[in-house]
């Protein structure tokens, strides 16, 4: 019985089930189940929702609100698409062929705009393809350069790793020599210094004894006063100020050391090692050699860590973005000039929006921990990369306070698979759109 019905159904030209893609029609022509029950053929597209997943109503809006079964618009002369069931018969023309609003007639009918849409889409696709091809070309070059750089960096690291044991051994040797020399000098020094020092100890002991007796006298005079040390507010403040000054000195020191570090890295052999020892009038040649050796070792280690950091910062999957290293892109809005310096920081005129915090996905990166907003969060900037042959900031907004979002065109976001997508577009789920 069912067979007969089916064949009648299948042979009739009306057998095309509305809202179903041609390749899925057969599924409907066999038997449909939902909720563990078979759906009668008469229930398909009868404008009454029997199945929670909407599968019995692929061509009507009866199961609006669910998103499992989508309405297929053929869109002849343009690209077929699927829309939510809620779009079918809601009075809004969603498909260019108007098939989602077939019930609208006369003046209210949806005009068929597929030809125009098709032309517009293919022009857009053409443009995108062009961009993609150009972008991919740039990307390939960038990647090969990045690979070469990576190799160079790795080689350098390897070289350093290879040289370091030798250098360290030399340093040890030098240190040993210096120790020996120091021991010899110390022995000589002891002979001359010892009597003088003994005298000094004696002098100091005498002084101590006299001070102690003085103290005893003074204490005897003031036995009635409290033993608690009285400190004036002023003195306390002074103590505090001293402490603060000490701290300040320490913090002041830090930038200096860093700048020295950079100097060493940039300028190779350290010069401060020598200068700091200027107190010793006559430069010991051994000492000098030792300092130099320490400098060489440090600069090698620094270089190695910089290279390692660079390698970690830009992993192979993001090599397409290697051209952004040491580069800043600008964007001017009506109020501000934004400067995005990749792998470094991002600024809105003079306000720091964040420091580079790395990629968060194949085509997204983030700058974090920018300047604090008044009473609010620290500023941050999300960057979404869009495929293109040129490098530019397309847009920069502040969707919620102090959370910025930029769209940057860059070849690094171009992917080979986009070619396929553009050449023979796949039907996208509405959720994938935008």
């Amino acid at each position, binding site marked *: 019985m069912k067979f007969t019905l089916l064949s009648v159904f299948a042979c009739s030209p009306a057998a095309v089930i509305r809202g179903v893609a041609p390749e899925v029609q057969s599924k409907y022509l066999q038997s449909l189940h939902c909720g563990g029950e078979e759906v009668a053929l008469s229930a398909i597209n009868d404008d009454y*929702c029997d199945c929670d997943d909407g599968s019995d109503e692929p061509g009507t809006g009866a199961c609006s*609100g669910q998103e499992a079964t989508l309405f297929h618009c053929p869109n002849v002369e343009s690209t077929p698409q699927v829309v939510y069931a*809620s779009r079918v*018969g809601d*009075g*809004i023309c969603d498909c260019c062929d108007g098939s989602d609003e077939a019930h609208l007639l006369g003046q209210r009918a949806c005009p068929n705009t597929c030809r125009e849409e098709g032309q517009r889409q293919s022009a857009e696709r053409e443009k995108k393809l062009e961009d993609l091809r150009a972008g991919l070309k740039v990307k390939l070059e960038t990647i090969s350069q990045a690979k070469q750089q990576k190799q160079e960096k790795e080689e350098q690291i390897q070289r350093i790793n290879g040289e370091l044991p030798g250098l360290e051994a030399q340093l040890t040797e030098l240190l040993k020599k210096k120790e020996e020399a120091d021991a010899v000098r110390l022995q000589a020094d002891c002979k001359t210094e010892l009597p003088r020092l003994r005298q000094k100890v004696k002098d100091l002991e005498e002084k101590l004894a006299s001070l102690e007796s003085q103290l005893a006298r003074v204490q005897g005079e003031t036995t009635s006063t409290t033993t608690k040390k009285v400190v004036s507010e002023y003195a306390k403040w002074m103590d505090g100020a001293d402490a603060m000054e000490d701290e300040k000195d320490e913090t002041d020191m830090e930038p200096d050391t860093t700048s020295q570090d950079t100097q060493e890295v940039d300028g190779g052999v350290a010069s401060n090692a020598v200068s700091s020892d200027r107190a010793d009038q006559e430069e010991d040649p051994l000492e000098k050699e030792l300092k130099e050796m320490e400098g060489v070792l440090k600069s090698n280690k620094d270089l190695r860590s910089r290279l390692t950091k660079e390698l970690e910062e830009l992993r192979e999957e993001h090599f397409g973005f290697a051209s952004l290293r040491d580069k800043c892109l600008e964007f001017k809005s009506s109020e501000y000039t934004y400067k995005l310096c990749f792998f470094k920081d991002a600024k809105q005129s003079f306000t720091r929006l964040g420091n580079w915090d790395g990629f968060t996905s194949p085509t997204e990166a983030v700058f974090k921990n920018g300047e604090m907003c008044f009473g609010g969060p620290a500023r941050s900037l999300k960057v979404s990369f869009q495929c293109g042959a040129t490098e530019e900031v397309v847009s920069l907004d*502040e969707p*919620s306070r102090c959370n910025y979002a930029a769209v940057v065109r860059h070849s690094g976001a171009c992917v080979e698979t986009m070619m396929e997508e553009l050449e023979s577009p796949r039907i996208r789920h509405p959720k994938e759109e935008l």
Partner: protein
Amino acid sequence: MRSPSFYLASEILSGSPTLFCSQVLPAAAVDRSKFRTCEQGSFCRRYKKWISRPEREKALWTVLPQTRAPLPEGGFSFQVKHVNEETPHLLLKLNIYASGMVRMRITEIKPLHIRHEIPPGDVVSDPPPAAAKVSEADESGKSIFKFATADGTAAEDRTELNARNMLNFERYRTPKERLPPDTASVAAPDTVLLDAAAHPNGLDTNGLWEEPFGGHTDQKPRGPASLGMDVSFLGDVPSLFGLPEHATKASLPFYQEPYRFFNLDVFEYEIDEPMALYGAIPIIWAIHRLGGQTVSSGFLWINPSETFVKLERDTPDGKGGPAHAWWTSESGVLDTVVMVGPTPKTVSAQFHDLTGHGPMPGLWALGKHQCRWNYMSEKDVATVDSMYDKYDIPYDTIWLDIEHTDGKAYFSWNAAAFPNPKQMIDNISAKRRKFVNVVDPHIKKDEKFHVYREVRDKGFFVKKVSYKQIDDPTDVKPADWVEETKIPDPTATQPPELFCGEGGWHPRKVNDPTPDLTDFEGWCWPGTSLYPDFTDPAMREYWGSQFALDKYTGTNADTYIWNDMNEPSVFNGPEVTMPRDAIHPNGMVEHRDVHNMYGYYVHRATFEGLQKRTPGDRPFVLTRSFFIGSHKYSAIWTGDNYAQWSHLKASIAMVGALTLGGQSLVGADVGGFFKHPDTEMTVRWYQLAVLIYPFLRNHAHLETPRREPYVFDEKTMLRIKASLQMRYKMLPLWYTLFHRWASAAEPVVRPLFWDFLDDPQTHENEEALESQIMLGDSLLVHGIAKPSSEQSEATVYLPKASGWYSIHNGAFKAPGAHVHKLDLDSIPAYYRAGTVVPLKSRIRRSSACMSLDPFTLNVYLNPQTGAAKGRLYIDDYRTRTYQDVGLLCARKIDFTCSARLGTRTHHAKASFEETLKSSH
């Protein structure tokens, strides 16, 4: 219809009120120092002393029965004589309305200055409600008025006015006299007791003629004019409700501090507070257990000046027995209405008989509103719109806050961010959605801004008075004046403190009767701003005309309006509002006289403008500030709430109080305006809001992260989406309920007692009172206002009915308390057995997209009778043709089922009774 009998009772109730204290919470966010308490305002402080004076029990006023005269607007008047006066100076007006109300007004017969009265039609309908035939039981002429219904349902008295003899009425007087004119002759002024401002012992004479607060000095050239009275709710009164707008409980706490009505822009308001908020509907609903029956009544205090109301009990534990309230207002006339009930339905009907019925909102107004301070550009708006579509989440309206304007000059656009606003809004229209723009009433002072220039040139701005002191021309040198000879004190090292100056005698200084008036300038969003006098019908007409599509460029007929900051908010004004001594050029009325109605007049002007802009269309206006009668024009939201569980919970009581005040189109910002709700709070807030907020809007502060449904993780997004889908599914129920509101005065959402007055749990059970509320007569909702880490189950009280069905799984529950295990997917909600609920099962992008879809009727049988009843109302959802009979469809649905519940097949018979004619 019942007609209440009215009589003047002869006995005087005595007994001093017992004050008791409810807990006072520590300050968390709101800056209390900015806002006045009763004690800090001279008239309230004075009134408190007045009512606690030892001789209070002595009656002061006598109603003179022989002076009875008919009033032109219906009803009749009596003169009222003070014991210390020879001639009566007060007039008492009485109206007894057929629907079961008594209105009592007291004013001065010949005041020195006009005592401001609200024009007819603005609050009380014009023409007023139909008058009842009155039978006078007793006219012995004393100071107590009792009201009771004569319909036999409840023979007992339930409301008494002035039973505790707290009436105070301060007549206008001249500054040079402590007493009003022609009273001085009665006795020596120092011994005359007349009112709180003229007391022989000078109860409190501070602030009678000027009053400083918060760095501002309120000039009071007209002097004291306050008034006050008490009302008693008789019987055993378990709970009082109402008094919107306060962030307090549904069952009103009897705070030590009086509830305050003074419309203000309160930054970060707190919960469980009698502090004033943005709007004022001074109505109390009382439940009386009397003679074995439970009845309800309402009491309305119609006065737009600053008002305090204190709730009191006779018993120290604050429970049981009668309840009392005293009221005091700064100026105007004493105008009260007692709505005698006896059922909640009749109290609501009486209120709307007095104030008018609300209009049907467009169906779209009941859908989801998506707002934020601010969507920053056209692209931003388009993205939000398409993201909703991407996830197939329904919504109806997208909103723009103040940042869309050119420098906060409303009616304009920021051209950089919104170069093509018309196109942007047309794109929204094309999705069958609506658009709302904010238009605030403060006007940017900017020569380039046409609204500023035009309002200024028409002289419509509220004025600032610069008082000059001049010599009082009436003060002449007495004939017997003896010049004092100044004898310098030879021992004094300082000059004498009082120095008469040259000539000795000087006339008294008084305020120039024609002081300089300049446009009042205050600070608001645009910087220097001016405030139009919206009390002036001509100003309202001008304002309304600004919404015409050719005037308000960039808008289309799908654009509607949001009036914010209309208390009015004046950043540098006293208490962040307009100085009370500012002058409204319309009638030279002082701002103090009309303050609480300023916001009302703003949104009314906008409503009337939209009505003219698109004839036949139903306007939509959202207002933050409001007054009695705002329901005829606007939707209300509860202002700048906070992303806190306590605010989520308080919204149940706040919405319930507002609907009892006639304002059914109301809601709180979902998720809270200030700060950011976590995902659980967001979900719980949506789950509650879709079921109980008639006005459903998601809004957020500029400094918060985005919170549109689609920004959350997928699980959260799906829960929000499911809630919104449920809302859209239930739109036919909401719409039908709004028709019941517009045609039969039934609040759309209401506290449980409204439907279940005979179930005492609905007046005393904490959960039933504070966590639960009804949507219509069919759906009970229990809000969840704690995170799951603190609450894993809820005790739901299901009132006495034939049973209840879970909205989520259909499970049947008998009435009573039930423990409900909680999960994050839903909150407890139950359909009452015996109801038919109209629904739409197809959930689409917007309500308009669903307008032609079929209805689904869910039948929840009464298990005893196998029957169910419901209603369905259908019209075109957007035009005013519903007011013409024949263009709508209202059906009563009667469903009976011959088989018992639980069987799959049954013989069902549904009858659809047309109620069209009867409902109009």
